[in-house]
């Protein structure tokens, strides 16, 4: 061995010992990242925690012009009479009486609490997409009648009008709760009800999608005021002496029950195709699962119907929007949104526009998102044609000046104590100044009462030019 200078000692750790350090470092890093996430979560959700445990104070909910719809900072009685009487059951309050409302579902957003400044931070302001003046006008247009009207901008998703009558006045408190009319504490636009002939829009969409536009438009059936199906059950028409032989456009305008019953029964449109389109549109058919809709936390149950055998009365009756068929006005409006834009996929409605935090920081809550494909663009455009013609031919007196498409409906409600009819009008307006899809329902409408079309007119007039962009 050759004698040489002593080399420098190598003190580096050997690989196997470094391995222990590596695993420990991995554990530490993972934990540390988790800790940072936790801190972020705790800080950003602190107002939610405080709101949920009832330890926070609450800010304001305002409409798109800044008009107050709910105020947690002072007694609501400080406001003028009737300030909260039109959209009270949509906006809700912090009393806990209503659970499916904007305030109840977004209580964490509304809390004034901030992690840094606590409860003294200032006032949170939630800006909604509603236009208070329009809601008031629509609410007044109902007169003495009850019902609901909901409309949304089918281009952006903003919901400017959502009225449900009767409506609790949250400024008056809940002392007279027992004496309040039924349905005061909920917004009827969100709850499934019998849709009447507005369901024919869904059936027609399914027919177009299944058999093609030309074939369906060419089909002619006869209406003699009543039609007997193969099982021997009668489907009556509201026109006592019938509409005679009609094509689809005429039958749609006449809202002819026998025509649509024969369309379903004839086999020109297989029942399985109707079921499939219904399911894509969000119906729970024959007990199948369907997702509920979410509107800024507000839950809307999906529509449902029973379609088992094309020769049976119940199936034909269901496809006409009577019997066991139930759909919420919200969902009917959504279909109109998808018809109006001609794509078969609607823009999702939303109610909250932005939040102004106590420190003045504004964060946007608005987002334009689309639903899944409910029906084909071809079917959407064909139905749009039919509906627009229907409006032009039959509603020009009331809706003149607006390029609309509409479908009326009458739901026959039979309850143990009484039976009555609810009047519907669903549709859309294509005008640039007022691009809305809507659904109006008047409960227990009698012959000389206000018509749904008149309410739609009020709605369009009060929104025209106000919701562009």
């Amino acid at each position: 061995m050759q004698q040489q200078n002593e080399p420098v000692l190598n003190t580096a750790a050997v690989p196997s010992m470094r391995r222990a350090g590596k695993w420990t470092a991995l554990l530490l890093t993972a934990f540390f990242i988790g800790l940072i996430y936790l801190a972020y979560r705790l800080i950003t959700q602190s107002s939610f925690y405080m709101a949920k445990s009832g330890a926070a104070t609450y800010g304001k909910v305002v409409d798109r012009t800044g008009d107050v719809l709910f105020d947690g900072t002072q007694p609501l009685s400080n406001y003028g009479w009737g300030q909260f009487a039109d959209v009270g059951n949509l906006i809700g309050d912090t009393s806990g009486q209503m659970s499916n409302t904007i305030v109840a579902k977004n209580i964490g957003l509304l809390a004034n609490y901030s992690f840094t400044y606590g409860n003294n931070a200032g006032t949170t302001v939630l800006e909604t997409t509603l236009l208070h003046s329009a809601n008031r006008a629509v609410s007044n247009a109902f007169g003495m009648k009850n019902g609901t009207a909901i409309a949304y901008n089918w281009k952006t998703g903003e919901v400017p009008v959502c009225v449900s009558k009767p409506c609790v006045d949250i400024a008056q408190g809940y002392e007279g709760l027992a004496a309040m009319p039924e349905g005061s504490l909920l917004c009827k636009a969100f709850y499934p009800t019998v849709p009447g002939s507005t369901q024919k829009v869904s059936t027609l969409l399914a027919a177009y999608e299944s058999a093609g536009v030309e074939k369906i438009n060419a089909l002619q059936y006869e209406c003699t005021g009543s039609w007997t199906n193969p099982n021997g059950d009668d489907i009556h028409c509201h026109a006592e002496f019938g509409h005679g032989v009609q094509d689809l456009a005429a039958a749609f305008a006449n809202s002819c029950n026998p025509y649509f019953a024969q369309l379903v029964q004839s086999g020109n449109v297989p029942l399985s195709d109707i079921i499939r389109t219904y399911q894509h549109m969000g119906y729970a058919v024959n007990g199948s699962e369907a997702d509920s809709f979410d509107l800024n936390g507000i839950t809307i149950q999906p529509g449902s119907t029973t379609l088992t055998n094309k020769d049976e009365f119940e199936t034909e009756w269901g496809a006409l929007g009577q019997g066991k068929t139930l759909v919420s006005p919200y969902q009917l409006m959504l279909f109109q949104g998808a018809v109006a834009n001609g794509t078969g996929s609607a823009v999702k409605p939303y109610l909250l526009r932005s939040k102004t935090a106590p420190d003045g920081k504004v964060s946007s809550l608005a987002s334009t998102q689309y639903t899944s494909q409910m029906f084909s663009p071809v079917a959407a455009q064909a139905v749009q044609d039919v509906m627009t013609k229907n409006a032009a031919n039959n509603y020009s007196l009331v809706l003149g000046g607006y390029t609309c498409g509409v479908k009326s409906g009458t739901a026959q409600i039979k309850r143990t104590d009484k039976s009555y009819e609810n009047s519907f009008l669903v549709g859309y307006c294509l005008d640039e100044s007022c691009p809305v899809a809507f659904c109006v329902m008047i409960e227990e409408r009698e012959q000389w009462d206000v018509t749904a079309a008149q309410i739609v007119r009020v709605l369009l007039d009060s929104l025209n030019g106000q919701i562009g962009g």
Partner: protein
Amino acid sequence: MAKNSTKPLSHPLLLLLILIAHTAMMVLVIFSFGINAEVVKMAVAVLLADVAGSVILQIVQREACTVDTVMLLVIGMSTIYQSCFGGLSFALKHYIFGLAAFLMCQISYAVTRNPYRAERWKPAWYVLFFALVAAILLLTGSRSMWIDLGFITIQPSEFVKPVFVLIAASSIRTQLNKKTFLGIHFVPDNLMLILCTVVIAGLQWWCRDLGSLPTFVAVAGFGFLLRFCYLREKFSVRLIVFLAGCAVVAGVLAWKLAPAYVQERLHSDIWSDMSGTGYQQVKALTAVAEGGWFGKGAGNGTLIRVAASRTDIVFSTICEEWGLFTGMMTVILVLFLPASILTVPPRSYYHSGLAVGVAAVFMVQMTLNIFGSCNVIPFTGVTIPFISQGGSSMLSSGILAGFLKAAQAPVLTDPVLKKKGGA
């Protein structure tokens, strides 16, 4: 610099810093309560422990001061926290157990500082392990983890943790010692680890105390990981996929087969059951939110009225009174214990196994406690080492800290070779 650092470590400086840190905290306590007998008791106790601990270490042994220093700092801090929760009363029991944990750390250091000896004593660890398991089976009440001695309750499952870490660690020499039975090659040590894991998992299942199951699984998992590192050529993609698949299957099975009360925990939404199963977490989260960055002030918290506020949701209790800053700080300080292994690497396979095992225990416990109480993961009743109240957990954490100390200041004399007198 080089000259400077050959001097014995600056214990006096570290002591001074600890004293100032504890004093500063005590000043905050005085802001809340003024000066009274309890404050004086607490101050004297904590500062005395700091000085005594440092002096004893200075005299007895000067190695691995990181672990001891952090322990002194953390135990003093937690004593102050525990004394102030919801009003001032000196937490004497916590303090005594803290000191006992410090002592246990030194004892376990003495026992495990020689990796060769500690590993040769593995049969003893097995005996101890099964003795503890038997104790849980026989002495605890029906399906619980506690032995009630009347004046004190012991949780033997806490003491299983350090023993399990001793069992999970292994050396390369042990791994090279293969036996053959019926044509199958196997390493007895690994078989024993599998057996012990199955036994402890089964026991936890039977006792319905699944809170500490992740801890044992993590220790066993890292034990096997290190073994794989010794014995496998590489982590091939196929092996990783296989292991990940096994883990997923095991997880899904555990999820599906978990008893009803566990299912309830896994699926419950605390905000829909705020007065029932979600009560503790809702209160804990609200407390953190109320505390803000700097807390409500020592003794001004209200979370103390909630069950387990000193143990399972202690992080929130600290955050409420002292603020999120201090809470995070405390957690990070406890992290320093397992992190010390990064600065001073171990010198033997067995010690590196111990260090990773201890890191796994500490991390998993803290993760389950902190993230569980803050509703990020399902809530289980586990403790934060050295911070939560509870004698058994405190002592077992002390023992685990001793392993870390051993890994940093090992003594390398092989008792068997010594007898033989070498080759």
